């Protein structure tokens, strides 16, 4: 059974046309695309900010919008918990009263969320008497998440909640978000333009570009396909490989990734076991044969599945058990005669790897 069914067409005065259809069933779905692709418009239509020209939106078999039948539910009756990009806390209310605002107008929904539990899980106790203008960006987002939860929503919607935060903070907020979803089991639609965020938390991704859906699937599949990655304003693919197992040895740390061993630098192992390694495609070297006598620790064997030429570079997708992308020069690609199906070895220095918790 699908949680949300969305099918809408709209044309803005600016000429931007939106024609998006998708269904979400899983717990955490990411709506992913570059800026200006129409992600936020989709969110606004679901939230009820404006009625589109044509289409329907259904949430748990409840019709929120149906232009043919003339149904348009007011935002206050949609039972959605929206976390906006800049949190939008009410500036004249304390954190505590902001949270209570979520509870105050809760409809007789099936979900009851305890204020004390939200304060505990999101670690808000110290913030309660403060006013929003005294909070940091990350704190604001936590409060906004708590406030949305306390309205007892059938679905959480987050509009680029991490866009204005710096990297270490992003990781922390994602952890809070994961805790929230685990604790209350709320279906979540997460809008983002960051591949790393999608890979980190989403179970399903819908890729949007120029007002249309250009792909969907499990993140490790959908985001390693060339189609969704060829937008002109994108920085290209991101390598984020899932760690299946990790073991610390006397002088190094070994991770199991896609059935192969990967050496990680010892110093970087954080207290909590990391779940992904991240590295830029330009840090991968490709070789047709396995070469000996190199300082490079990681030699991962795989098979080329896509070769994609962009302006001054060639992106090569290699299946090593998971998909990784290498960025090489056009000359190198010609010389190595890389085509889909070629067996290659990916060379990866241990110190070029970043661990992502």
């Amino acid at each position, binding site marked *: 059974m699908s949680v949300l069914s969305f099918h809408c067409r709209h044309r803005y005065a600016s000429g931007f046309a939106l024609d998006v259809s998708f269904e979400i069933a899983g717990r955490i779905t990411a709506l992913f695309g570059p800026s200006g692709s129409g992600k936020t418009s989709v969110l606004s239509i679901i*939230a*009820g*900010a404006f009625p589109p020209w044509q289409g329907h939106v259904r949430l748990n078999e409840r019709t929120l919008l149906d232009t043919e039948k003339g149904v348009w539910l*007011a*935002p*206050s*009756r*949609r*039972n*959605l*918990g*929206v976390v*906006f990009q800049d949190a*939008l806390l*009410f*500036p*004249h*209310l*304390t954190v505590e009263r902001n949270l209570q*605002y*979520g509870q*105050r*107008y*809760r*409809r007789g929904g099936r979900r009851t969320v305890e204020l004390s539990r939200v304060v505990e899980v999101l670690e808000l106790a110290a913030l309660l008497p403060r*006013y929003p*203008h*005294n909070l940091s960006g990350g704190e604001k987002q936590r409060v906004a998440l708590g*406030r*949305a939860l306390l*309205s007892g929503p059938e679905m959480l919607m987050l509009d680029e909640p991490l866009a204005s935060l710096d990297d270490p903070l992003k990781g922390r907020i994602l952890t809070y978000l994961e805790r929230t979803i685990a604790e209350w089991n709320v279906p979540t639609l997460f809008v983002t333009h960051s591949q790393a965020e999608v890979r980190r938390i989403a179970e399903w991704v819908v890729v949007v570009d120029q007002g249309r859906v250009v792909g969907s699937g499990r993140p490790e599949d959908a985001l390693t396909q060339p189609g969704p990655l060829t937008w002109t304003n994108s920085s290209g693919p991101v390598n984020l490989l899932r760690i299946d197992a990790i073991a610390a040895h006397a002088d190094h740390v070994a991770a199991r990734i896609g059935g192969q061993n990967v050496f990680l630098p010892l110093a970087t192992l954080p207290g909590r076991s990391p779940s992904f390694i991240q590295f830029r495609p330009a840090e991968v070297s490709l070789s047709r044969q396995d070469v000996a006598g190199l300082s490079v620790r990681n030699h991962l064997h795989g098979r080329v599945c896509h070769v994609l030429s962009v302006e001054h570079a060639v992106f090569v997708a290699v299946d090593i058990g998971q998909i990784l992308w290498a960025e090489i020069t056009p000359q190198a690609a010609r010389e190595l005669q890389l085509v889909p199906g070629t067996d290659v070895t990916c060379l990866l220095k241990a110190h070029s790897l970043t661990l992502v918790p």
Partner: protein
Amino acid sequence: MSAEEWSALRLSFQVAMCAALAGLPLAVAVGYWLARARCGGKWLIEAVVNLPLVLPPVVTGYLLLVLLAPRGPIGAILQDLLGIKIVFTWWGAALASMVMGFPLMVRAIRLAFQAVDPRLEMAARTLGAGGAATFFTISLPLARRGVVAGWVLAFARSLGEFGATIMVAGNIEGQTRTIPLAVYTLSNQPDGMGQAWRLVALSVLLSCGALAISELLERRPSQDVCA
């Protein structure tokens, strides 16, 4: 001060208070609508609201007099149905002051609502608050400084209202003779200059006080009061 002056002061306060309070709900409604609406007829409402600002007060007063006279279109209804007489009573003075102060009040309130991020209202609505609840819990509290400032401005304007008042309410001592009317009357009497000066000084004091309060309220950003 003489009994005459006291009566003018008391009457001025009564008229101004009544005018500013009676105009407030409508000014809040119109101010909010002007701040948020995007429809084509907006300029027309704006023009009508601002008309008393540009018309000679005597002309506004004359129009009100025609409308409210016992045999005028509105006056007749009030007279027959409710037995209320407006013209040449202090009610008339209050009404004239209200109309004259209304554009100032609407302007301040409108600016205050324009400064409230409409997305905060959307956030409240997604949390389940209906239109009215959103207005009273989010929009109005966030605009409250501008609302109070607008009220003070209209109150101050009403204290000084002369042209429209004298047309609608006349200049009856103890009933409709407010401070400005008293100053006018006294300045026409050969021995009234001393009294007139006292009222002039009082008037300047009151107006400066009101203006200062209004300025103070508008200048401080609305977040500071909370902390």
